[in-house]
């Protein structure tokens, strides 16, 4: 029986709650309760299954961005089917497909139920693609091996002449079994695997994992380590945003910016290496702190080199914005409307480029971001121009943030001994990676080992945004649309 007074349990980012304290509803009631919260303005961060007995519990992690709080609830274990949440809240569409694939729970009424990344022999089980019929309509299939130096995925366009009527994206080619490898963990290889969930997002994923481990241990990393993680996170953002600006310039054949950004991205990667010896920040973040310190002499070096790299970026990006030929190619191409963005649950720069003020560093500050924040960069137009513009603004703000924070380190240790994870506990960590919200959720068993570990890369929310952006756009604009989202395939495929 449903308890009418039952409510979602509230918790802050980077904290934990006893599994027994997570309220449980019967399945249909749970979907309704989740829908009610989403109607009240919550956002779906995670929706996944936890096997229990012979059934599976559905778990929802919601974010109330304006209230700076997260909410968690679950269903009683069940088998079979439940009324689909997607029907009223499209942001659940991929989560429900994933739960169906992983646990066999069928969302009744889901409009497009098909596999997400499961294998069929030695290729993903893609299922049927949506087709537009008609004499003038033709279909374009691309991938999994693309023309560029890029991860594999399959794109199926339905076109009328040059115009894209519909795009469907089938991924799963990069599925490496990341979540499955975490069962009964953490293991010896776990931390290194977390650094390669999406290799260009090493710091964000590693920080999310370390934060989950710290929340499970009922503690947090020393302040100095939180400071260094925040610095590394912004360097990661700078390197990737600069690389994307260069790639966008390259796609519209504006070579000065493309060449300059290619070099400057390497300069930013080298700054991360100056901290920890690896250009991607591998080996820096560990549960309980950081493995490397940034002593004053090296911090001074970092500031000096950062200044040069930022000035170079500023100049390269100014060439780009000053060119009418570039602006003309970006404006009014690949539009996602704000209402659509909110409905499908976009995150990161893609959401901010639709005017949504949505940034974990600001909405759900944890770690160093509780003490030092950067203003959220937004742009209203939702097109390729807006997504490029938001990146360009974030480059400025990350640079400013680094200049301020590098001279204001916290004193103390870089690393503390971490207690073992608490048993039967549920922990959530959100980190604003350069693509958007990185979400890690862990549930421990009676022995404190992982019973379930869920990773949601921002790309999981955002791929559908790219397909919407393509509608009504010329197929020749696909490269700049794709680059303007710059999503991860392996972070999605896990």
């Amino acid at each position, binding site marked *: 029986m449903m308890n009418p007074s039952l409510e979602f349990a509230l918790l802050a980012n980077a904290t934990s709650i006893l599994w027994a304290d997570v309220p449980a509803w019967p399945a249909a009631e749970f979907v309704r309760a989740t829908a009610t919260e989403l109607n009240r303005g919550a956002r779906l961060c995670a929706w996944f299954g936890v096997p229990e007995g012979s059934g599976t519990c559905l778990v929802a992690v919601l974010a109330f961005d304006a209230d700076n709080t997260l909410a968690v609830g679950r269903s009683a274990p069940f088998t079979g089917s439940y009324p689909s949440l997607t029907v009223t809240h499209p942001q659940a569409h991929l989560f429900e497909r994933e739960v169906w694939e992983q646990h066999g729970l069928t969302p009744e009424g889901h409009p497009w139920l098909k596999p997400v990344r499961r294998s069929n022999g030695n290729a993903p089980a893609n299922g049927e693609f949506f087709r537009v019929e008609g004499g003038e309509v033709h279909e374009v299939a691309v991938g999994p091996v693309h023309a560029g130096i890029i991860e594999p995925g399959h794109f199926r366009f339905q076109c009328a002449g040059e115009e894209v009527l519909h795009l469907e994206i089938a991924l799963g080619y990069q599925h*490496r079994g990341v979540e499955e490898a975490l069962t009964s963990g953490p293991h010896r290889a776990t931390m290194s695997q977390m650094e390669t969930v999406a290799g260009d997002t090493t710091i964000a994923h590693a920080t999310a994992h370390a934060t989950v481990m710290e929340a499970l241990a009922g503690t947090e990393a020393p302040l100095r380590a939180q400071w260094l993680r925040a610095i590394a996170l912004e360097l990661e953002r700078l390197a990737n945003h600069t690389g994307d600006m260069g790639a966008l310039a390259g796609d519209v054949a504006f070579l000065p910016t493309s060449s300059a950004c290619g070099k400057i991205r*390497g300069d930013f990667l080298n700054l991360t290496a100056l901290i920890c010896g690896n250009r991607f920040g591998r080996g820096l973040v560990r549960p309980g702190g950081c493995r490397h310190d940034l002593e004053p002499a090296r911090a001074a*070096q970092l500031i000096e080199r950062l200044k040069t790299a930022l000035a170079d970026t500023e100049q390269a990006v100014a060439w780009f914005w000053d060119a009418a030929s570039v602006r003309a190619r970006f404006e009014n191409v690949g539009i996602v409307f704000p209402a659509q963005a909110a409905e499908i649950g976009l995150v990161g720069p893609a959401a901010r480029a639709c005017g949504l003020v949505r940034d974990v560093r600001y909405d759900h500050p944890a770690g160093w971001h509780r003490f030092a924040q950067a203003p959220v960069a937004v742009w209203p137009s939702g097109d390729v121009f807006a997504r490029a513009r938001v990146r360009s603004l974030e480059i400025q703000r990350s640079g400013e943030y680094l200049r301020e924070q590098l001279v204001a380190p916290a004193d103390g240790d870089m690393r503390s001994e971490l207690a073992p994870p608490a048993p039967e506990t549920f922990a959530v960590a959100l980190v604003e990676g350069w693509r958007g919200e990185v979400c890690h959720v862990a549930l421990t068993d009676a022995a404190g080992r992982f019973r379930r570990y869920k990773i949601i890369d921002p790309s999981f929310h955002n791929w559908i945004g790219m397909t919407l952006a393509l509608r009504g756009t010329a197929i020749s604009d696909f490269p700049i649309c794709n680059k303007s989202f710059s999503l991860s395939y392996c972070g999605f495929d896990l």
Partner: protein
Amino acid sequence: MFETLRQSLKVGVVTTSYPDTPAEVSRRARGKPEIDWANWKDARPAVAVCPTGAIECRDEAGPPAATRTATLDLGKCIFCGLCADVDPAIRMTPQCELAARSRESLCHTARYQLNENGTHQHLLEASPAATSAEAITAVGQELQARIQSVLGRSLHIREVDAGSCNGCEVEIHGLNSPVYDLERFGIHFVASPRHADMLLVTGPVTRNMELALKKTYAATPDPRLVVAVGACGCSGGIFGVNYATCGAVDAVIPVDVYIPGCPPNPHALLHGILLAMGRLNRYSSDPTAEPKIAGSVSSQPGSAA
């Protein structure tokens, strides 16, 4: 536009002179781990922390005497440095040019006399990991010479991501930047395997990419070269073989050159590609030279850390 041109000209040339001069790497960059084999007393702590099994040891009770065989496999190593943190006999070096023509030549093995308390002493024999200048059989050499005469002057590469984390791709992109400027060697990336002479493959090869990789290989005209990139491409790396991955690239298609690293930086990639083309010696003035250590603040634009 004139302003853009003026500023571009002011920047000047940023391209590295590698491989004519040794790679400039930061002193802090973590490359190949170096083990003091002769004075290594106990492999077990390093084995216990190594996340990929790059350092392994196997004890044999004898007779005649109990021995321990310890292995360092650079094809599995992700250069995390955890072994060096727990073992004073291991030191992380910035050395990144580690590409080799065979998987075996990335492995270094040593056999020790085993003590009763579990430590070891007296290096009995050691097989140093062969370098890129390794000996190859006469038949292989002849074949290689022929391939190099066909492909050595200009090379078209098709990159295939068969399951990587995108780290290797970021570094491969770096090769196209003005700093490494791959085109100066007559090498460029092409959009189709049908136009390619070389497949540059990153891994671990997922089960879901197995078919696509095999088809891409079949679509590449002979003679063709395959280069496996990164710890995952060389050995399966941090993911190894599981229900979702087949592991190393050579588990699916034949491989000519292996480039270790996690991910290998652009210098390491360039070194491996030139090795596969047989052009390394022509360009390196001194291939045995130690990597040059870049100055701290005033590092060159091209310095890879």
